[in-house]
């Protein structure tokens, strides 16, 4: 049980669309112990102080990606951020930036999901391989090429970090471009050309101005900034090679 002599003030941005005109800060005094996370603080509030506080969470171990929030103004996972790092001060918790707030700490993530679905995030095989033929051979170094980009937990902290996305929500964005890049780099996939129009588009990689905050906040070290910027070169190559090689071919 948390030691009640030690408490911390949590300032949480509330928003109940049916009763609030706009979001409003509400303060809670939460008992804390050395190993308590911000998520555990929020759970305490919901369990014992205010059952109306809504937030997404599940695994508690930074792998499901549910609990992304702005903690003291920085995008972070609540389960992996600890109250001890704010004490003796206060901690401010708000919904993830650059997304519309649905309710309290819950954001509308339709845009992210729509983009995820749009990039053909699956293996596009060179030719169908029967299961009886066994696995594709893929050396550890071939796997290493794309592994970091496959580690994205879809927490959207990078979108909250990216000011270009905040200014232009049509931008495909760091996390989704990282996923696109993951498939392009997978030796089993040949869909790079099919995904290129999204990379090249008005809302593609050239919206990025190399702020780099996305990679800074990524809890899984995916380095989406790298995925986006490497694809600027890919996009340019694609554009200029167009004049040299024939296009189309029914792909």
């Amino acid at each position, binding site marked *: 049980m948390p030691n009640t002599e030690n408490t911390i003030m949590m300032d949480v941005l509330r928003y109940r*669309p049916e009763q609030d005109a706009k979001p409003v800060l509400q303060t809670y005094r939460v008992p804390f112990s050395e190993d308590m996370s911000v998520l555990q603080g929020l759970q305490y509030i919901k369990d014992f102080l205010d059952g109306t506080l809504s937030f997404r969470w599940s695994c508690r171990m930074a792998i499901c990606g549910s609990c992304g929030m702005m903690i003291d103004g920085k995008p972070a996972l609540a389960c992996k951020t600890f109250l001890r790092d704010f004490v003796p001060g206060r901690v401010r918790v708000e919904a993830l930036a650059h997304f519309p707030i649905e309710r309290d700490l819950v954001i509308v993530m339709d845009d992210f999901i729509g983009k995820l679905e749009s990039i053909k995030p699956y293996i596009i095989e060179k030719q169908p391989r029967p299961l009886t033929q066994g696995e594709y051979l893929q050396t550890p170094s071939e796997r290493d090429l794309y592994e970091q980009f496959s580690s994205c937990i879809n927490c959207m902290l990078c979108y909250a970090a990216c000011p270009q996305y905040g200014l232009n929500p049509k931008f495909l964005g760091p996390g989704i471009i990282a996923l696109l890049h993951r498939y392009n780099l997978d030796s089993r996939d040949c869909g790079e050309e099919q995904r290129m129009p999204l990379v090249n588009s008005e809302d593609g990689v050239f919206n990025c101005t190399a702020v780099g905050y996305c990679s800074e906040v990524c809890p899984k070290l995916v380095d989406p900034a790298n995925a986006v910027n490497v694809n600027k070169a890919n996009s340019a190559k694609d554009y200029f090679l167009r004049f040299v090689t024939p296009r189309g071919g029914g792909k």
Partner: protein
Amino acid sequence: MTVPVSSGRRPYTRSMQGWWRRNTFYIEYMIHEGTAVFVAAYALVLLVGLVRLSQGQAAWDAWLQALRSPLSIVFHVITLVAISYHTWTWFHIMPRTLPPILIKGKRMSAAAITRSGLAASAILSIILFVLVWGLWT
């Protein structure tokens, strides 16, 4: 995003006004992006110098004289500081823009890439400085 009127939903979009002031990371970003102006300004100075060179000895000497004015010295000192900072931050971002570089099968770390870039930059600057100084004297 269309929201049916019949539900109680009313998603709230927060303003991006003053976004860059909200976070030291963004403030620093704006500063180092701002130094690009100084890079452009210095390029302009060099361009003018080139033009003056093509206009003959008198024009060239007049330009060199202008460069020695106190205002010009101040401008050049500020520009040097700005461009140095620009270089420093540019090489810190560079690893983000490159595909993996393999040396003997191991990936070159971001820190190593930055260090190499800064080192190359420093060495080239020294060489150039010595060259120009040599030509000058």
